[in-house]
């Protein structure tokens, strides 16, 4: 059975941005296609159009040379187009089988036979009768895939499927996808990870700013060539020089720190130990939800612990709140830049005033010193190349990259001895990522320390001097970055162990 899918001259315009600009692509079964592009390149819009979530302003979709209308997700299902989204749509408290039976037309007995066949055929090992919440991310994804397979899909679209997976789970997924492809399912794989394109896909279409800029066979491509097509400029790769900190002064020591949360959705931290030297960057890897949030809050003082469990420059700071810790020259950049690190409704200078350290004199005798805050804000805007000089602008009008520059700038302009940052570059475009990375390297060069909690392994390997992994609230052994590979991290992130 041959499947041909063709999108022709698809355009979709959102206010202020052209998400898809006359996109035309052709796909045929038996191959795995990559759709590659940065955040905001238009991949997701195209996928949403193919799955019936979004209607295009113009253009047509052809399945086996017949024009099809995709007005709703139901239409996509009718046309045997299956879709696995980045975020899972599963009921956590229901069993795997119940989740599958919800949107299946089959009788339960028939469905069970069908699902067991699929499990056997593709060597999936999932217990159908346990609640979904007990599954790992990889297993949940398999449930989503099975849900598509039940309907004998002609087309299977995977939207950034590996963002939540470990390296091992990713390898497993790739094996399955190759098998599906052999069985005649047309696979469209959306990603911004270049390595995956090369190891998995047969053809790659690169999108940039809503347009398809290139379609080619992956055999003829290299990581660099794809990166250049994706970004549209030659990137200079940053790689940090790894230093030896044996003789440097120890600046932070966390010892035997435990945190038990009242909230069942939070992760408990168990027996954390770590130390940090002057000028060093400690990377903390892990799949999100393994305690990074709690660790960040403990380091920033949003969660208070025993005084002696955290020593910063030989002072007990465990009991201090974030503002008090800032007085000891610590700085923090949280993951959630939109609703935590800054308030979108506040003006830039008001957001700057959130970092109110004593010597700033932002608030003298309890009164607001607007002039001082504004001067200080102007300095941040120009020193950290934020593309505005209007401190009265509400920060909701800054792009993600500029907002992050403002936040990092606000934290760094006080020359802190330690910066703790959590996923500082998520969702940013390559230009902004480079800027943030350069800044983080720069502060280490100036002898300041940093802790980088991140779910992006490339970023960690690029910036850290030492790396450890957090898994289910526990820290792995801390390793020198030059001995760590992505593979090793993947094993540890998935709960495995290495020698």
């Amino acid at each position, binding site marked *: 059975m041959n499947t041909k899918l063709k999108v022709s001259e698809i355009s979709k315009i959102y206010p202020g941005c052209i998400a898809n600009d006359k996109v035309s692509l052709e796909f045929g079964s038996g191959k795995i296609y990559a759709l590659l592009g940065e955040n905001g390149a238009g991949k997701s819009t195209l996928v949403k159009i193919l799955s019936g979530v979004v209607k295009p302003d113009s253009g047509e979709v052809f399945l086996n040379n017949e024009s099809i*209308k995709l*007005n*709703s997700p139901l*239409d996509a299902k009718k046309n045997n187009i299956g879709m696995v989204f980045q975020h899972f749509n599963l009921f956590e408290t229901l069993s795997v089988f119940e989740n599958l039976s919800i949107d299946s037309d089959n009788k339960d007995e028939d469905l069970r036979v069908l699902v067991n066949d699929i499990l056997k055929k593709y060597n999936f090992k999932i217990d159908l009768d346990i609640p979904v919440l007990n599954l790992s991310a990889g297993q949940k994804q398999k449930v989503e895939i099975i849900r598509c397979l039940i309907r004998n899909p002609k087309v299977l679209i995977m939207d950034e499927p590996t963002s939540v997976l470990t390296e091992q789970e990713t390898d497993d997924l790739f094996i399955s996808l190759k098998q599906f492809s052999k069985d005649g399912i047309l696979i469209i794989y959306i990603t911004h990870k270049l390595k995956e394109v090369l190891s998995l896909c047969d053809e790659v279409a690169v999108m940039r700013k809503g347009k398809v800029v290139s379609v080619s066979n992956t055999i003829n491509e290299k990581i660099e060539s794809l990166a250049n097509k994706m970004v549209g400029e030659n990137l200079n790769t940053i790689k940090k020089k790894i230093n030896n900190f044996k003789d440097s002064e120890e600046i932070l020591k966390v010892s035997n720190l435990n945190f038990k949360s009242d909230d069942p959705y939070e992760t408990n931290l168990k027996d954390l130990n770590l130390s940090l030297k002057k000028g060093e960057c400690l990377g903390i890897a892990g799949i999100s939800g393994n305690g990074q949030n709690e660790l960040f809050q403990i380091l*920033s*003082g*949003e969660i208070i612990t025993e005084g002696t469990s955290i020593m910063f420059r030989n002072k007990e700071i465990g009991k201090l*709140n*974030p*503002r*008090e*810790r*800032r007085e000891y020259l610590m700085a*923090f950049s*949280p993951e*959630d830049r939109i*609703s*935590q*690190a*800054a*308030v979108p*409704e*506040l003006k830039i200078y*008001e957001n700057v*005033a*959130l*970092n*109110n350290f004593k010597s700033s004199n932002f*608030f003298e005798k*309890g*009164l*607001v010193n607007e002039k001082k805050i504004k001067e200080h804000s102007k300095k941040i805007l120009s020193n950290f190349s934020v593309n505005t000089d209007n401190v009265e602008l509400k920060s*909701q009008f800054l792009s993600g990259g500029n907002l992050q520059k403002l936040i990092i700038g606000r934290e760094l302009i006080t020359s802190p001895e330690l910066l703790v940052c959590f996923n500082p570059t998520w969702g940013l475009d390559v230009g902004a990522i480079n800027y943030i990375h350069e800044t983080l390297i720069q502060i280490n060069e100036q002898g300041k320390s940093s802790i980088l909690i991140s779910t992006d392994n490339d970023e960690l390997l690029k910036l850290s001097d030492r790396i450890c992994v957090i898994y289910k609230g526990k820290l792995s052994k801390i390793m020198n970055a030059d001995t760590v590979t992505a593979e090793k991290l993947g094993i540890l992130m998935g709960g495995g162990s290495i020698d």
Partner: protein
Amino acid sequence: MIKIEKRNDVSQSIYFLTPILAIFLTLFGGGIIFYILGFNPIEALKFFFITPISDLYGLSELLVKATPLCLIAIGLSFCFKSNNWNIGAEGQLIFGGIVGGGVALLFYNHDGFYVLPIIILSGAIGGMLFAMIPAILKTYFNTNEILVSLMLVYVAKLLLDYLVVGPWSNPEGFNFPETRQFSESARMPILFDGLRIHAGIFITLITVFLSWLILYKTYLGFQIKVSGLSLKTAKYAGYKGKTMIIIVFMISGACAGLAGVGEITGPIGQLHRNISPDYGFTAIIVAFLGRLNPVGIIFASLIVALTYLGAETAQIFLQVPKYTGQVFQGMILFFLLGSDYLLFFKIKFLGLKKNEL
């Protein structure tokens, strides 16, 4: 199909103009109601909104009513701005009245300049303490402040009932449910002979000014603003969230307590069962109509005070129940919330396609 989308940018001037639109819509809606009731709408609205303030006495009455409303609403704005939903200002007003009134009764045969300030202060402290109950329960036991503060209103009301019927009732009062009249030095000075407007208005004006100062010019005000917009950010910035909840409730309660003591030492002069025609609840409308802004609240309190007066005139001249006043207050809130919704969201009507069915 109807789709509701959030608007990204709402202009500041329109934000402050919608309350005025809401008032016009209320007048329009009121006109329709009067028309249905068989009155000439223009005439009826004139009785409601113009006649009450067409003489000096009327204007003075307007200020007498606006004084407590404005004071309470200012206090509430501290709570509402920081996402603390104090619905129990009426209870705090009554409790402030009870404490202030108790002190006044203590001094019933005393004269002296010191009497009134002591009464006012104790009233403020009374309201403040009463407001701290929901605040402390919220911060330390995670209770819902809306429920606690609201239920405490009834506690305060019943306590007042008990006191004026029982232990504090006037020994020479033939068992009427009321206390003695306060002494002359326990009364707010009257500003003009023959009018009821009293010195309480200065307390209100000073409070408005102080509130503006605190909200817009101090670190505390900045912290309140940030906490109201994002509690996560407030935590990250290291603001002491619990302390702040208690502080805003204290400010709010003190204002309500002041309003209560202003009423009993001003126009009333004693304690009885009905020391407030629900000022504490109506002030919630005032606070939102004034956009939680001190100057806005001044104007809003005048407008809402007018609905109290209008209801009384309408009762006399049109023989409609005085509860029409509450109908108008309800309409103001309804139209304000309605126009706010349209201000922050846009509604898109999408044609219903056959294949969507």
